[in-house]
């Protein structure tokens, strides 16, 4: 590239740094508008700055993994200049023969009143003592348990917008050789019951679906192993001397608990970061809560799951027949998936290139801002077409804005600002998580405005979260559309029937086109029929400007003078 004009070089750098005065900025803009060399130079600097910011973010993303590696190395090899009791313990415990002797030494030491382990006598805070010692105690207690029950729930952790607690939850029962789980919906209606029971050939799974009124049995597949809670708990406890951090104490279900974080590297070959938190009752020392983070959802690209296990009951008195499968009268012998498929109609799957979904999803996850428009096209049985909208959308990570208009007259402006507390610290009970969504609506028709703060965040989905979900459906496409050019961009497209998720009609469908180069959406259509079966509606999202620079003011609510404040929605 030829050199830019000399006087421009410093100015362009200052402009990128954001320290150029308004006057000089104008002069620069004016100059580059007529000097291609300088324009190219200024553009290159701007692009490089963006790459720097992105590189910074990508370095940041790997920071946890780097930290975890340091902590792992710390735990494995380093000894400080002091002799470390934990290290001594591990060394001693390495040989089975010395285990008893070591235990005897510790007992003698404790009885003798020598403070062998610093902190162990600190106001009854047993968890500050060596995990190897109290861990053995807990494992011995777990070994005595006959039946344990717990509740399991899932939190959907979203890339965009607030996290939400799934309405579905499970009650699980574990005995030494039998397992049962009851799945409930948000209104506590039972959806299905599953048993895994030993048989001559191995374990057999029995399942009754109350939703589809059917039952089935499946053997062999589950021959040797099922998700045994007691085993998991034993394993977590045995890793505690290598826990990456103590989470402190919290109150759960009215009990004071102490928590530990266990890094994924310690109990499996996971390449991704999936830490587990385990909380112990300070009084009984038994585990009362587990939190498993970062579990990927195959279905929804925009979220990972945090699985919470709680309400542990170690001395559960359960009815004698709890592990005996019971099939309600009239239920048919079939797999629920088959019944669901039969109800939904035939599903067609196109051959979508294997990595395409990943490419689209990761491109979308990199996005920081986007502006696009949404509108509705409505075709009646007579063939008349009407357009409603458009609604101009401006999205950033921590908020979004919707400007809607009708016949080119502004109707409403809505601002949503999301305050999401850093969840990296202690994971509190879901309801105590600090989310706040501040909604400001300005209504130009009746000259009013309202402001509302939502703590229950499930009502408003971040629009980007929806886009991620829809784009993530590509691998369930019915067919691949012909490549085409939209808004001057070479695109590939897919068609996905809406019955591929939820209980939607196979007649409704999504048509989506993506930029060949960047893999980002260029146009998204949702075609659906009104209940009269004659009127077709198409919801269109287009004119996407990905990672466009949105001035800070975009997300700052502006109330026109003279507008009257009215009550916001329920909070």
């Amino acid at each position, binding site marked *: 590239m030829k050199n830019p004009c000399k006087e421009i070089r410093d100015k362009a*750098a200052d402009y990128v*740094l954001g320290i150029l005065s308004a006057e000089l900025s104008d002069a620069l803009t004016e100059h580059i508008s007529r000097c291609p060399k300088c324009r190219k130079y200024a553009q*290159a600097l701007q692009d490089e700055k963006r790459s720097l910011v992105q590189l910074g973010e990508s370095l940041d993303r790997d920071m946890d993994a*780097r930290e975890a590696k340091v902590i792992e190395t710390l*735990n494995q090899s380093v000894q400080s*200049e002091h002799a470390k009791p934990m290290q001594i313990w591990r060394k001693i415990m390495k040989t089975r023969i010395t285990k008893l002797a070591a235990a005897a030494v510790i007992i003698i030491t404790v009885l003798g009143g020598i403070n062998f382990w610093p902190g162990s006598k600190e106001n009854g805070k047993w968890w500050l003592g060596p995990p190897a010692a109290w861990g053995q105690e807990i494992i011995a207690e777990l070994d005595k348990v006959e039946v344990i029950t717990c509740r399991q729930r899932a939190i959907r952790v979203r890339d965009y917008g607030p996290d939400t607690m799934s309405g579905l939850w499970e009650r699980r029962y574990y005995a030494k050789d039998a397992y049962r789980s009851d799945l409930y919906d948000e209104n506590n209606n039972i959806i299905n019951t599953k048993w895994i029971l030993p048989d001559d050939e191995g374990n057999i799974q029995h399942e009754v679906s109350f939703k589809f009124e059917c039952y089935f049995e499946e053997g062999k597949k589950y021959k040797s192993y099922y998700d045994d809670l007691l085993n998991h708990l034993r394993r977590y406890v045995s890793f505690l001397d290598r826990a990456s951090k*103590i989470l*402190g104490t919290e109150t759960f279900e009215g009990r004071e608990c102490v928590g530990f974080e266990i890094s994924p590297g310690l109990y499996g070959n996971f390449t991704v970061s999936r830490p587990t938190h385990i909380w112990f009752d300070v009084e009984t020392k038994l585990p009362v809560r587990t939190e498993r983070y970062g579990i990927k959802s195959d279905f929804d690209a925009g979220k990972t799951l945090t699985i919470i296990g709680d309400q542990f009951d170690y001395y559960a008195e359960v009815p004698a027949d709890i592990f005996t499968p019971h099939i309600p009268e009239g239920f048919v012998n079939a797999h629920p998936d088959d019944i669901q498929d039969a109800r939904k109609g035939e599903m067609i799957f196109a051959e979508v290139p294997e990595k395409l979904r990943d490419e689209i999803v990761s491109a979308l996850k990199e996005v920081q801002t986007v502006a696009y428009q949404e509108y509705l096209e409505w075709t009646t049985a007579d063939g008349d077409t009407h357009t409603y909208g458009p609604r101009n959308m401006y999205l950033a990570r921590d908020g979004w804005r919707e400007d809607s208009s009708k016949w080119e007259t502004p109707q409403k402006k809505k601002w949503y600002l999301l305050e999401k507390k850093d969840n990296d610290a202690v994971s509190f009970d879901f309801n105590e998580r600090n989310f706040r969504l501040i909604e400001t609506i300005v209504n130009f028709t009746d000259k009013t405005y309202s402001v509302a703060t939502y703590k229950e965040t499930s009502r408003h989905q971040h629009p980007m979260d929806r886009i991620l979900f829809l784009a993530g459906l590509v691998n369930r496409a019915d067919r691949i559309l012909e490549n085409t050019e939209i808004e001057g961009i070479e695109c590939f497209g897919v068609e996905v029937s809406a019955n591929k998720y939820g209980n939607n009609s196979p007649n409704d469908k999504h048509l989506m086109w993506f930029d060949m180069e960047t893999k980002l959406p260029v146009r998204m259509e949702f075609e659906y029929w009104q209940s009269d079966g004659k009127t077709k509606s198409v919801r269109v999202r287009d004119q996407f400007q990905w990672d466009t620079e949105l001035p800070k003011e975009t997300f700052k609510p502006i109330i026109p003078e003279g507008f009257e404040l009215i009550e916001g929605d329920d909070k």
Partner: protein
Amino acid sequence: MNDRCDENLVAASRTGDKSAYALLVKRHYKHVFLVCLGMLGSVHDAEDIAQEVMLKGFVEIDKLRDAAQFGSWIIRIAKNLCINFIHRKERAKKVLVEKSTRPNQTTTQNDSLQLAIERLSPETRLPLVMYYFDGESVKTVAEKLNISASGVYQKLRTAIRELHNLLVEQGDAK
């Protein structure tokens, strides 16, 4: 316990409590890593040295006089280890034939940007890394590097231009 201050964590670490020291790692690692990156330029080298720094911090924690000063103490260790590393590398260079730093054709955009950052002069690189990667304000960078704010701007300005020239040289800038 999450709210424990550095002082308490240092005290616990002195008794050999690795989980307490792990909390200190979580608190200070990023900053240590970015200082190493700023001084060394290479992500790979910065990872190695930052790890060495954090481990050394644990081994030598008894030598820290004022427990509340853990943050600045660990950064001092980082700077010293980086200087040692640079000297070691320079000595090695004298023996070995210096490898060309020109990238090959298969490098990605991030790789070439990282390479260009690696090739920046150290005095402009550290402010750039602190400003862009550690999210620090010009004022904070100035305080930490003990130079004036206008000095920081001058270094950032130079870094931006130098970086562009290096990318052009590598054939990566348009």
